[in-house]
């Protein structure tokens, strides 16, 4: 079986959950005997005028993170196609416009911020003036890709709304069935103040699709209730986590205190303010604990101010945006990991923490709560419960040891191979249905 997948670049290029999930999924599919033609947007800048780049799989430097004996078998199963575009996941239409405006004003074609506190971002100005235009342009090129690869794939799989038009275009050109994957909904990103254009694209993609995959039952319910997608079309495929082949040695601990970590974008969706309030409560009782907020985002300055006002800045630290090895290091230095998300379609980072033997506290409003037993679950708004949970895991080694060891066992059993097998079964169904039509 062969799939044309519109996905996102692998880590370390993109540190969000989307790239990580695409990576784990394609590996799992390869193991299940599925050939993947992997199409990603890639900013080539001004020097290259071609729209489409066929990239030799062995040249994809993103796979550096996965060097090891078993990397070869997936390379044989995959081909890479880059479409010249500067779309990145998680970018909002407003942010895109801001970057483009800066490009027009400064005249520079490409730049990135070099400040270590913030996420680096390269943006090439030669592309569409706004994100919606870019999404449409991407779809046109995707149609061309589908045409050139005619007969070389049986099913199309598109990840996240930015690629849905591309998926629809590919379906029209090829007549092959389309599967769209909802990693997050507009309601997760923006709360109730949704961008209606984004919503419309998400809905159009799901309506045009033969199947919708949701990363959790939580997301599945949103898709059914708020987007009006027929329930029988929507299946839940929980994400999994990949074990690094050779986990590096634990970094030397600088501070002796227990470390409680929040790691993620510092945005409304992730509930950073609840973490701060709980931290202040715990610090009143426990002297030997420090809190770390790793990441950056539009709420960071607000959070810093709140920490200062609570008078806990000598025990509450900020690392700025972390990437690659630093993320891993942060997990290894942690004694408790907290993900107090207000709304989290899945949430892969607690799994990574558990893999590093760290007990985790997650909000009941996260998709990952559906697959974990050995995680403390609290309502994101219940700051007292969160503080209690942190206190317990810091104070009672028996408790934290139990969560850490059982959690590691649990997370080891969440395999991409199994998730991919489920995805493959869905592919088979839609291909079968497509033949009947």
């Amino acid at each position, binding site marked *: 079986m062969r799939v044309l997948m519109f996905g996102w670049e692998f880590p370390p290029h993109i540190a969000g959950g989307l790239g990580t999930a695409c990576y784990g999924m394609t590996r799992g599919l390869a193991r299940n005997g599925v050939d993947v033609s992997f199409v990603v947007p890639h900013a080539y800048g001004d020097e290259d005028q071609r729209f489409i780049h066929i990239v030799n799989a062995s040249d994809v430097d993103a796979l550096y993170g996965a060097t090891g004996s078993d990397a070869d078998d997936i390379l044989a199963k995959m081909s890479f196609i880059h479409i010249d575009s500067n779309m990145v996941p998680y970018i909002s239409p407003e942010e895109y416009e801001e970057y483009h405006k800066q490009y027009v004003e400064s005249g520079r074609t490409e730049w990135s911020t070099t*400040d*270590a*506190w913030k996420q680096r971002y390269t943006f090439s100005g030669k592309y569409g003036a706004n994100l919606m235009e870019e999404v449409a342009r991407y779809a046109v090129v995707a149609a061309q890709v589908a045409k050139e690869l005619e007969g070389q794939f049986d099913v199309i799989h598109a990840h996240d709304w930015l690629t849905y038009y591309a998926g629809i275009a590919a379906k029209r050109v090829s007549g092959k069935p389309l599967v769209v994957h909802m990693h997050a909904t507009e309601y997760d990103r923006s709360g109730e103040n949704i961008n209606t254009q984004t919503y419309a694209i998400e809905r159009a993609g799901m309506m045009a699709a033969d199947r919708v995959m949701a990363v959790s039952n939580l997301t599945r319910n949103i898709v059914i209730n708020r987007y009006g997608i027929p329930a029988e079309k929507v299946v839940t495929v929980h994400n999994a986590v990949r074990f690094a082949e050779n986990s590096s040695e634990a*970094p*030397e*601990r*600088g*501070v*002796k205190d227990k470390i409680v970590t929040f790691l993620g974008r510092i945005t409304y969706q992730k509930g950073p303010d609840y973490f701060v309030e709980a931290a202040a409560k715990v610090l009143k009782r426990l002297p030997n604990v420090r809190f*770390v907020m*790793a990441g950056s985002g539009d709420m*960071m*300055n607000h959070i*810093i*101010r709140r*920490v*200062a*006002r609570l*008078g806990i*800045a*000598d*025990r509450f*630290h*900020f*690392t*700025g945006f972390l990437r690659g090895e*630093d993320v891993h*290091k942060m997990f290894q230095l942690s004694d408790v990991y907290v993900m107090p998300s207000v709304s989290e379609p899945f949430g892969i980072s607690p799994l990574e923490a558990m893999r590093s033997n760290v007990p985790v506290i997650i909000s009941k409003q996260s998709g990952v709560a559906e697959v974990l037993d050995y995680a403390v679950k609290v309502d994101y708004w219940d700051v007292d419960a969160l503080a209690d949970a942190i206190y317990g895991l810091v104070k009672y080694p028996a408790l934290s040891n139990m969560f850490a060891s059982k959690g590691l066992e649990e997370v080891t059993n969440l395999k991409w191979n199994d998730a991919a097998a489920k995805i493959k079964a869905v592919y088979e169904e839609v291909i079968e249905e497509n033949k009947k039509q």
Partner: protein
Amino acid sequence: MKTVCLYFQVHQPWRLKKYRFFNMGKDHYYLDDLLNRSVMQKVARQCYLPMNALLLKLIKENKGKFRCSFSITGIAVEQFKAYAPEVLDSFRELAATGCVEFLAETYSHSLAALASPEDFAEQVKLHTKMLKEEFGVKPTAFRNTELIYSDEIGKAVADMGFKTMLAEGARHVLGWKSPNFVYANAINQKLRLLLRNYKLSDDIAFRFSNKGWDQWPLTADKYASWLTSDETPGDVINLFMDYETFGEHQNADTGIFDFMKQLPAAFLAKKHQLEFATVTETASKYQPVAVLHCPHVMSWADEERDVTAWLGNELQNEAFSKLYAQKDKVFALDNPDFYNVWSFLQTSDHFYYMATKWLSDGDVHSYFNPYDSAYDAFVNYMNVLSDFIIELDAALAAQKKKVAVH
């Protein structure tokens, strides 16, 4: 005959390096050596060395009639020693002429006056000791960091034995009164106050090179005529400014050095009837005309002339209170390495970088700021301070253990 009191402030902070959470507990060196060295050597080349040479020449040419005053922070002197010892030598030469007065201030250019009287006294004692060692002088006049002043601070300064103190001629404090007279502290009237004439000072420090200014270009002769005119009544004209004005804020191309070269001759010309005096000379030459009531703290910074540039938001308040909470531990430990860090962490510049009042005075703030934002400055400072606290607590615990064993 009016007396002109020229006073220059010399200061460079020890800037902190980018200090991350991952450094904590492992790396206890906090300074950005490269940045500190390059700033110091650049300012030495553009300002300190040429301006000191010019002042020395003017003093010699005018045979004692050209006089001025300086205050140099202990932190700046540390950096002269590390990166530009020839600057220190040139200041010593100026000291040896007898025409230059050195004022006392806080060693670290700190906000200790706002922390507690003990912190304040400690900082001043350190600075006075440094003046004695480096320049062989015992100061009689005092200027506080950023001209921060209140009745209480003035009283504390008088208690330390100083006879004269500098302050801002702030409009909201003076009201209808003129800064061009000698005033006295409201609590201890023995302390004489010289108030900065901010308009005439800023004509040089800020407006000199501004081509949009209707008085541009400013010549020494024109400037002298303003000082002598009836528009500027009074006994004394206090021109207080950053020394870096010369060659740094106003670079050599603006003609600032030529202006300064002409200044003594223009002031001392018969038609203008002006004389130069140092701070102490000026204060003792005239009787105070009134006491100055200043119950609230003021400074020479920003439009508001208050201390909100350093202690105006929750970031600054948090960093400030967490820093000064360490004082007792630092003194109990009594270890020179810890005193050193304790000293440079107090420098007001660190708090200035955390300011979020960017509206009217944003230009000045961003000019001096190595950080992208107040939040970056705060996070970096707190990371350094947190590591310092960890080290301090560990050293104290070790010391206690040692005492217990013996």
